[in-house]
């Protein structure tokens, strides 16, 4: 090695530097996972659009009379069959002469009810199945996961078709059970994977070390920290359930034809698609926009809760 001389450089020291090590610097505003997620959501225009659509659909579902004075069934006149839009009937008439706009407004309640019920059923079955399997492991995991696998192996839509075609009664509750009863396995799997990861974190060990029971640890620490993918999945599942109901109704094995539903409307408009395509178009649009709103909402929530998963902009 050469005997090069390395000089000893010392930076001028800043009298304000140093002193306290690792000083606590708090920002003015509080910050935690949910607050940060909310701040993130509030900055996104898409969030407002999605929320507005969901709000309008929910309002229509709860108070359809706010949107239209026309009744969807009773005011039908065959004289208006496949009629073009007229004063007070902005979207025209169905083949039966019913007001398309009114039917869409009244159909919102069905779609939303099915969506919410399916999500509820999925959560009630899927969350305990996934969480218990992952957290306790061993034979409990083996049993619960195999049961889940069986349901997972059956395409939930196919199962719903079979169930619906043998059911004597086909109302909102039955169709929701048929869809949700077979769709929960995906949720259980997603949650199981998340819990498996969270349960090995040190705060879970710390909770047990301080004397909390296993079950209490699961409820207090593990579940709240595993819910992010569940919330995202359920939001998207809500949209998917609305589609599933529409599809079943379209196939004629969904809700009875007397029930107002976008799926039923699409099915009925199909026979006169050549003469009155708009009667098919409007309920389809309502369905698409609503489902899209829920899916976008789910994606946005995921981005807000997990900034790492966010697509690079």
């Amino acid at each position, binding site marked *: 090695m050469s005997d090069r001389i390395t000089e*000893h450089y010392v*930076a001028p020291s800043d009298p304000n530097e140093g002193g306290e*090590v690792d000083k606590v610097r708090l920002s003015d505003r*509080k910050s935690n*996972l949910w607050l940060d997620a909310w701040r993130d959501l509030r900055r996104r225009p898409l969030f407002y659009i999605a929320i507005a659509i969901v709000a309008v659909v929910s309002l229509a579902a709860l108070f359809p009379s706010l949107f239209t004075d026309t009744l969807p069934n009773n005011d039908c006149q065959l004289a208006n069959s496949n009629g073009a839009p007229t004063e007070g009937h902005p979207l025209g008439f169905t083949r039966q002469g019913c007001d398309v706009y009114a039917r869409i407004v009244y159909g919102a309640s069905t779609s939303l009810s099915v969506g919410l019920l399916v999500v509820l059923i999925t959560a009630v079955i899927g969350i305990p199945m996934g969480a218990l399997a992952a957290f306790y492991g061993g034979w409990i995991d083996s049993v619960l996961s195999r049961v889940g696998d069986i349901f997972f192996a059956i395409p939930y839509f196919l199962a719903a078709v079979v169930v619906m075609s043998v059911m004597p009664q086909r109302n909102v509750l039955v169709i929701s059970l048929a869809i949700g009863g077979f769709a929960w396995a995906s949720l259980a799997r997603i949650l199981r994977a998340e819990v498996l990861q969270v349960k090995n974190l040190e705060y879970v060990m710390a909770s047990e070390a301080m004397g909390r029971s296993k079950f209490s640890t699961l409820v207090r620490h593990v579940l709240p920290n595993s819910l992010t993918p569940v919330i995202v999945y359920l939001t998207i599942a809500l949209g998917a359930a609305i589609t599933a109901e529409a599809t079943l109704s379209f196939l004629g094995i969904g809700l009875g034809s007397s029930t107002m539903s976008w799926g039923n409307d699409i099915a009925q408009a199909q026979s006169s698609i050549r003469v009155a395509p708009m009667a098919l178009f409007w309920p389809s649009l309502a369905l698409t926009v609503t489902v899209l709103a829920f899916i976008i909402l789910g994606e946005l929530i995921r981005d807000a809760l997990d900034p790492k998963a966010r697509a690079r902009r």
Partner: protein
Amino acid sequence: MTEEITVETTTTGKPAADPNAPLVEVDDLQITFKTGTGDVHAVRGVSFDIHPGETVAIVGESGSGKSTTATALIKLLAGNGRISGGSIKVEGTDITRYDESKMAAVRGGVIGYVPQDPMSNLNPVWSVGFQVREAIRANGVATGKKNIEAKAIEVLQQAGLGDAERRMKQFPHQFSGGMRQRVLIGIGLGADPKLLIADEPTSALDVTVQKVILDHLESLTREKNTAMLFITHDLGLAAERASKLIVMSKGLIVEAGPSLEILQNPQHPYTKRLIAAAPSLASRRIHSTAGLPVAEGADELDMAALAERHEDTEAAVEAAPVMISVKDLRKTYSIRRGSFKSEPLHAVDGISFDIHKGTTLALVGESGSGKSTAARLVLGLEPPSGGDITVGGQSMAKASAKQLFDLRRRMQVVFQDPYASLDPQRSIGAIIAEPLKVHKVGDRASRHARVEELLEQVALPAELAHRYPNELSGGQRQRVAIARALALKPEVVVLDEAVSALDVLVQAQILQLLADLQEELGLTYLFITHDLAVVRVVADSVAVMERGKIVEAGSTDDIFENAQQEYTQRLLDAIPGAGIEFGN
């Protein structure tokens, strides 16, 4: 082993470079990262030279900009980072304006790079041989299938992998951490670069493995006269391995020069504090400053002062009653082998030790020695396969569920990872009060008062009770974890690698806090660690574990000055910087 070294003549074409001209000249380098909350100036004007064959170390805490500086040399900054000023000259030409294709020739060929984490820097789906061959092909050192294969074997053999030919067919998961690091070093040196950047090359490895790898790296680079740029947080390691030291803080160089001179005669206040806080240096400092008055005030963090205080208490150790007594403790796991067979693994294989009240026992060992399993057994997180643990006269094996629950009140734990040990969805106040709630101690108001008292004890502001862990640094989180452990006024605290993840200054501060609390509250510590340097300053007695057994135990002084076992001696020798004569 006989190694054939092919001496390559690189003089073709180019005139021989002036040996006194620097290989790399960094001048007023500035690096800016674009973030959601505005620009962050990570490096704010850094200048240094690296001469051919020279070993330079950049030392600093996390966030000092040391790694950013290193990655800028090969222009592999993260997507949101850019060089916003200054120049980097490699062999006289500025590379800051080089495009990707020109940089590709520099990377590997002129500047090799060994990344930090051997566990995640090899692609698990490709065989090791494939990844080495790929690097060789990319660097263009060999062409043709046969030549590349031969070069790959040569590279791995040089990196110290025996039977490289067979090893090449294996996958990264079949390699230990040390072997993976050897592969990465092999790849980094594959094209005979003039400069090798090693970014914390061994911080994920055990000390003994670290020593072997660094020794090997040193001999390889000396042989080929390769310059080295070490990035490390470990002052001792930097001083031991590098001739020139650059100390960085907050994106600036605070001090630079010959490493020994800086260590023995630090000028900048930051460097002084860093050196005082480094336990690896303090471990030998006890002798050099014995009898000398400790100059620093009580608020300064000085490992030597901390260690000396411990010496005084050592006499009292034997007199104190036994708090924890572990007798012939065993834990056996069964490991699946083949389809239906299983093999027993003795994670903890009959260990016994006593800890006296108010003292600290350090359980030391490398990864896989069973020390963490032992801690989990003592905490009652797992049932032992045999033996017994007695805490304050209460046998855990004979305890009922109720007695075991009450025992947990007297024993608390602080874990290693400050980012994983606090529930992110709970406020700090709720986290600290949780043990009180679980054990139904006090009412809302009294619990709140206790939280404030605890926050004060660990020197955190009271308003933190309503904040969440994400606002805190690692060291502050660790204080919260300590406060939580103290909430129930326990007699025993198990510290499972509790300071291993912290920067030296913060680590020194937490060690100081733990020592103060021990004195104030008469706590008994079981200190689990792989870091012998830290043991020197905190422990009264030491038990060294190897493969589930305690190979040597005794008072800290006995072990450090008069280790009987070869294994213990090896661990001690591997402490970086321990051999450096240290001035003040």
